[in-house]
């Protein structure tokens, strides 16, 4: 390539040199011709002056010997004095005035010289050709030298570098190797190689680091994903503006197909509690989470309990200040626990045999009942003790005793079935009932006691064949003010009940 350019340049140069050399040679020939002719002007002038034709002929002959001159003639004012035999009339002659040999102002004739244009031209061409050849030779040699030098110093290392560079496989940066073409010189090519190697090195280091980081991130993400997806609790991220952003399968199972915060809040049985919690998070911007147990109705209309944890997520990356808030919600299904709790609470407060409240549960409820005493209502506590229960136990067995207790409890419960009514088995064959009636005349209270007595005294079926009957002694204490203690009321009722016992049982006494 370089060689071709060099040759082209030298050819163009040759053409110019040819033209210049030709012009130069022609100019030189003209100059030479002029000099030669000038040398003959004086003798020619004399020959014309004395009209000496022989002399003129001689002068012309001596001029014609010259290669540059094709023909010549000498003229005086009358015409041709002498001329050479060969005369090319086509060419234009060069005229030299022949001055008077003794009077400078006078002209006696002229010398006409016909240049040998063919010869001059061929001379010029051959001279130009020589120049061109010389120049071509020199430029060729120069080009060749340059080419060899460039090839050795630049092209060869570059070709090797390019070949080596092609072998570098960028698709697998981990196996990137440095380029080594045994180039040790500290020139531009050397810098290029070391630059490429630095680049390769940097790419490889970066790639490996990047990949390691990516793998680590992926693994971490996988774990997070695992934790998130396989968590036993429901995890969701809710934006107050955009609704549910992120949810795991458990969360989705709990909340179902909902999107907005509003839907989320309203899925619970107590939406106002949830709204309040969110409002609190917003107003306080507190980082500590709020935990609430909430119930909701699932798709099968069963009540489920979830322990809800609301936490404010402060997104470090989000710099824009707007009123959008991210809330992390963790839902933990606690229905089972709630049921267990309820059950154990029930067990703790109820009597296993009769299903009535036990003494502990009864006390709690009675306390509550006493707290709500007003002067528009009448509240009373009733102590019911079965008469001669022990003999039934002894004669019919414990099972029969249990049946009697259960049946009696049912009968009490049937009579005192208001929500506010408290029926409890106080212990053994002793029952306590607390109740409130809006307006109850003393006679009405007596009627109630009689009804209860009669109800208890109805025969009780033990087995298909066995029946028994039992009576009860009832003491009733009416409460008038909330300041009265339960214990005092019960004591009053107890006193009354024992009074009944002493007076022959199967009766009631109201105090």
């Amino acid at each position, binding site marked *: 390539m370089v060689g071709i350019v060099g040759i082209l340049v030298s050819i163009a140069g040759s053409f110019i040199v040819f033209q210049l050399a030709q012009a130069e040679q022609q100019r030189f020939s003209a100059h030479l011709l002029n000099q030669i002719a000038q040398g003959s002007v004086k*003798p020619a002038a*004399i020959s014309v*002056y*004395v*009209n*000496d*034709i*022989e*002399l003129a002929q*001689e002068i012309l002959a001596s001029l014609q010997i010259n290669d540059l001159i094709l023909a010549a003639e000498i003229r005086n004012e009358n015409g041709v004095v002498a001329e050479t035999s060969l005369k090319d009339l086509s060419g234009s002659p060069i005229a030299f005035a022949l001055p008077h*040999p*003794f*009077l400078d102002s*006078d002209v006696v004739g002229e010398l006409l010289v016909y240049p040998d244009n063919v010869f001059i031209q061929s001379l010029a061409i051959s001279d130009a050709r020589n120049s061109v050849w010389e120049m071509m030779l020199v430029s060729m040699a120069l080009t060749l030298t340059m080419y060899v030098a460039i090839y050795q110093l630049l092209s060869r290392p570059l070709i090797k570098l390019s070949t080596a560079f092609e072998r570098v496989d960028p698709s697998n940066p981990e196996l990137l190797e440095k380029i080594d073409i045994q180039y040790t010189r500290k020139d531009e090519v050397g810098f290029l190689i070391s630059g490429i190697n630095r680049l390769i090195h940097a790419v490889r280091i970066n790639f490996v680091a990047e990949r390691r980081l990516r793998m680590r991130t992926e693994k971490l993400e996988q774990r997070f994903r695992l934790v998130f997806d396989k968590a036993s609790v429901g995890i969701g991220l809710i934006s107050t503006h955009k609704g549910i952003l992120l949810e795991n399968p458990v969360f989705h199972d709990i909340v179902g197909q909902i999107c907005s915060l509003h839907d989320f809040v309203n899925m619970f049985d107590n939406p106002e509690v949830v709204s309040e919690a969110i409002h609190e998070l917003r107003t306080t911007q507190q980082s500590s989470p709020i935990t609430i147990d909430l119930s909701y109705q699932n798709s099968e209309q069963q009540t489920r309990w979830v322990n809800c944890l609301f936490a404010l997520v402060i997104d470090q990356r989000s710099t824009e200040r707007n009123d959008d808030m991210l809330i992390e919600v963790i839902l933990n299904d606690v229905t089972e626990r709630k049921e267990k709790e309820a059950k154990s609470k029930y067990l703790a407060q109820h009597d296993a045999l009769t299903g009535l409240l036990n003494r502990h549960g009864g006390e709690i409820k009675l306390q509550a009942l006493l707290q709500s005493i007003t002067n528009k209502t009448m509240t009373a506590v009733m102590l019911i003790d079965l008469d001669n229960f022990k003999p039934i136990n002894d004669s019919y067995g414990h099972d029969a005793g249990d049946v009697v207790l259960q049946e009696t409890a049912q009968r009490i419960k049937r009579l005192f079935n208001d929500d506010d009514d408290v029926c409890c088995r106080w212990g053994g064959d002793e029952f306590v009932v607390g109740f409130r009636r809006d307006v109850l005349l003393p006679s009405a209270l007596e009627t109630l006691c009689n009804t209860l007595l009669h109800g208890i005294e109805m025969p009780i079926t033990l087995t298909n064949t066995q029946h028994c009957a039992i009576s009860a002694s009832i003491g009733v204490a009416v409460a008038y003010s909330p300041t009265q203690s339960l214990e005092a009321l019960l004591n009053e009722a107890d006193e009354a009940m024992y009074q009944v016992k002493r007076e022959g049982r199967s009766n009631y006494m109201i105090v």
Partner: protein
Amino acid sequence: MTRLSWLCRLILVITVSSAATCASAFADPIAVVVPKQSDINALSRKQVIDIFMGRFDFLENGQKIKPVDYDNGYPFREQFYRSLVNKSERQIAAYWSRLLFSGRAKPPTQVASVEVSIDELSNDTSMITYVPVNLVSEEMKIVLVLE
């Protein structure tokens, strides 16, 4: 008026005489002369040159003319050529030797002295020669004076 013209004449005489004295102190002017019988009355300087340098041996009217020169080194010959063509005798010799071979143009006949030339002049009317002005005689006609 009369007195002034006299004064002028006096100045003129003094000037001319002093000029003559000056010229005679170095050399007399040279006169180109022809026999008294010749038809030629005057010649231009160029004509004289052409005659003596061999260009013509005839005048325009076809009259033959024959120049007579003196031997080399003859007094006033140098002066003649110097004043005619501003060349030395040696240069004149070189000029003629160049034309010698062809033989077309011949140098003027050379005579030994002015006496011989005057003698020749009286014999041939086509002759022309030059003499110092002071040697011009009755038999001659001055056609040109070279100062």
